[in-house]
C-alpha cells in the first residue's frame, strides 16, 4: 500500500552524464515495492517545483531497508533533486502503480530498455525467476550509458545499441530485438523507454505473437489516481477504447491493450 513518507537520503551521486543515483532509507518502500512501481517526489518545499516528480524504483535492499533511484536532470525538479545531500529528508509517496507481471510461467524473457527507461528493468531482472533473460539496452550515445555491469550480472546476455554508434551496435535497440525475435522464442517481452520505442517493441511482439508488457510514461498531476491527467488510451475487452490512468491503472500495461496513436 502506498504511503506519504518522509524518508532520509543516504546518498546522492553522479552516475553518468546528467544522471544521478539516489539511495533512500525506507523500510516501507523496500519491503513493499515490486518492479515497475515508482515513487512520486516533492523535490522542494514550496512552489518552485509545485508538482511531484515520478521516478521509478531501480532496486531495493530489503535487508537494509533502502532503495535506489536513478534520475536524469531535465528541469527544475530533477535539478533540485541532484543538489540534495545525504542526511536530508525526502518527501515521497509510494510505492505507486502496478508493476510488471513476473509470472514464473515466463521462462524465456526479453528486457528492452531505452534511456532512462532502463531503471525499472534492473529491478525486474533482480526479481524475475526466468531461465533465460536477454537484455537489450538502447541509448542516445555512449555518454548516457550506465549500469551495464549490473545488467550483465543479472542477464543471460546483454546487448547495447547507441543511436550514434558510439558504443555497441549503431542504431535502435529495437533492431536487436527484431534480429533475435525468431530464434529466441521469448515467453514475454518487458519494455520501458520512449514512446516510439515502446510502439515499435509492441509491433514486433504483435507481429510474432509474443506477449509483451510496456511501462508507459505520461505527465502526471498527482501520481496516485485522483486527478485523471495521466491518460493513456487502452482497448477494453469489447474492442472499444478509452482513457485509463498511467499512474494507477499502469504504468505497466499489456502492449496489446495500449492504443499507440
Amino acid at each position, binding site marked *: 500500500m*502506498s504511503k506519504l513518507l518522509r524518508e532520509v537520503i543516504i546518498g546522492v551521486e553522479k552516475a553518468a552524464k546528467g544522471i544521478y543515483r539516489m539511495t533512500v532509507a525506507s523500510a516501507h518502500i523496500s519491503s513493499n515495492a515490486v518492479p515497475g512501481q515508482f515513487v512520486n517526489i516533492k523535490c522542494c518545499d514550496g512552489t518552485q*517545483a*509545485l*508538482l511531484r516528480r515520478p521516478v521509478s524504483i531501480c532496486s531495493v535492499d530489503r535487508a537494509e531497508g533502502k532503495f535506489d533511484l536513478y534520475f536524469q536532470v531535465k528541469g527544475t525538479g530533477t535539478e533540485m533533486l541532484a543538489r540534495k545531500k545525504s542526511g536530508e529528508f525526502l518527501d515521497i509517496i509510494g510505492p505507486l502503480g502496478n508493476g510488471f507481471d513476473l509470472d514464473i510461467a515466463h521462462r524465456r524473457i526479453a528486457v528492452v530498455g531505452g534511456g532512462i527507461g532502463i531503471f525499472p528493468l534492473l529491478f525486474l531482472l533482480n526479481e524475475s525467476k526466468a531461465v533465460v533473460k536477454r537484455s537489450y539496452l538502447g541509448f542516445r550515445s555512449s555518454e548516457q550509458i550506465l549500469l551495464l555491469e549490473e545488467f550483465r550480472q543479472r542477464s543471460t546476455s546483454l546487448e547495447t545499441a547507441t543511436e550514434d554508434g558510439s558504443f555497441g551496435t549503431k542504431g535502435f535497440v529495437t533492431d536487436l530485438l527484431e534480429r533475435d525475435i525468431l530464434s529466441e522464442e521469448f515467453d514475454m517481452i518487458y519494455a520501458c523507454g520512449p514512446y516510439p520505442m515502446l510502439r515499435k517493441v509492441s509491433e514486433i511482439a504483435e507481429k510474432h505473437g509474443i506477449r509483451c508488457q510496456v511501462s508507459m510514461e505520461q*505527465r502526471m*498531476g498527482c501520481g496516485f489516481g485522483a*486527478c*485523471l491527467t*495521466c491518460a493513456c488510451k487502452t482497448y477494453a475487452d469489447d474492442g472499444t477504447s478509452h482513457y485509463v490512468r498511467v499512474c*494507477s491503472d499502469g504504468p505497466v500495461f499489456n502492449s496489446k491493450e495500449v492504443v499507440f496513436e
Partner: protein
Amino acid sequence: MRETDLSVDICGVKLKNPVIAASGTFGFGREHACYVDLNKIGGISVKGLTLRPREGNKPPRVAETPAGMLNSVGLQNPGVRHFIENEIPFLRQYSTAIIANIAGNTIEEYCEMAEILSDADIDAIELNVSCPNVKAGCVAFGNTTEGISEITSQVRKYCRKPLIVKLTPNVTSISDIAAAAEAAGADAISLINTLLGMAIDIETRRPILANNTGGLSGPAVKPVAVRMVYEVSRTVKIPVIGMGGIFTGSDAVEFLIAGASAVMVGTANLVYPDACIKVCEGIEQYMKRHGFSRVADITGSLILNT
C-alpha cells in the same frame, strides 16, 4: 477559554469543518482514502459529472507553470448514473458532505442531472458552468449574466438540493455574474474555477497540453481568487465558498477574511494528499491564536484600508 467550533452551515448543508475538497482534484475520494481519514474532511466535491460517461481530452493533460499548473482533463467521468450506483455508497461510509459537481452540454442536460441527483443521497449540487476544457457547452453559460441567469433559473426548477453555482474567473465583472446567479435562485456561490492559460514547449513549438489550452490553478492564482471572493461576497447575500491556490491554513484564512464562509482545496490535494486536513488544522490554530470561537466570525472580517 472558549471552545473552537469549526462547523459551518452553507445554505443548509452542515459541514463539520469549512474545508471541502475541490472538484476534479479528489476523484470520488477513493484514492485519497489511502492517505487521509475522509471523516475529517468537511465535504467532497466530486469529479465533474456529465449525463453520459465522458472520455476526456487527449494527453498530455497537465503542465506545470510557475507556482501553478494547467490541466485539460476535459471532464473525464463515468457519468452521473454510475456515480449514484457506485460512488455514493462508498462515500456515504464517511461522515463527510457529498457535493455533486455537474456539467452539461445543454441546459436540458443540466436539468436532467439536477433532477436525477435530487433523488440521490447527496448533500448539494455544484453547477460547473465554468469548465474551460470542453469545447461545446458549459463554459458559455458562465461568461455572461444572461447565460448564468438562464441556466441557474432552469436548473433551479429541477433541483431539490441546495444549489451551489461555481463561477469562472475569466470574466470582466465577477460580481455581476454572481449577482445574476443569486437572483436566479442559487443558494451559494463557489469560486474560482481555473483561469484559461497556455504553456508552450519551445523546442517542439507546440503547446504542452494536447488540448492546446488549459485551466490554471494553484498558488499562482491566489491573489486573483481572493480579490474575486472579496468582490462577490460584498455583492451577494448567499454564502460564498472560496478557492484558488489554497495550500495552507493561512491561505484559507485569507479567503475567509475576504468573505468566504467555507473554502475548497484543489491543486494542493494532488501534491499533498493530506492537504485538506492540514488546511483545517491551520484554520483551527489561527482561530485559537486570535480567539475566534466560530468560523463565521472570521468570514468577511476584512478591514479595508482607507
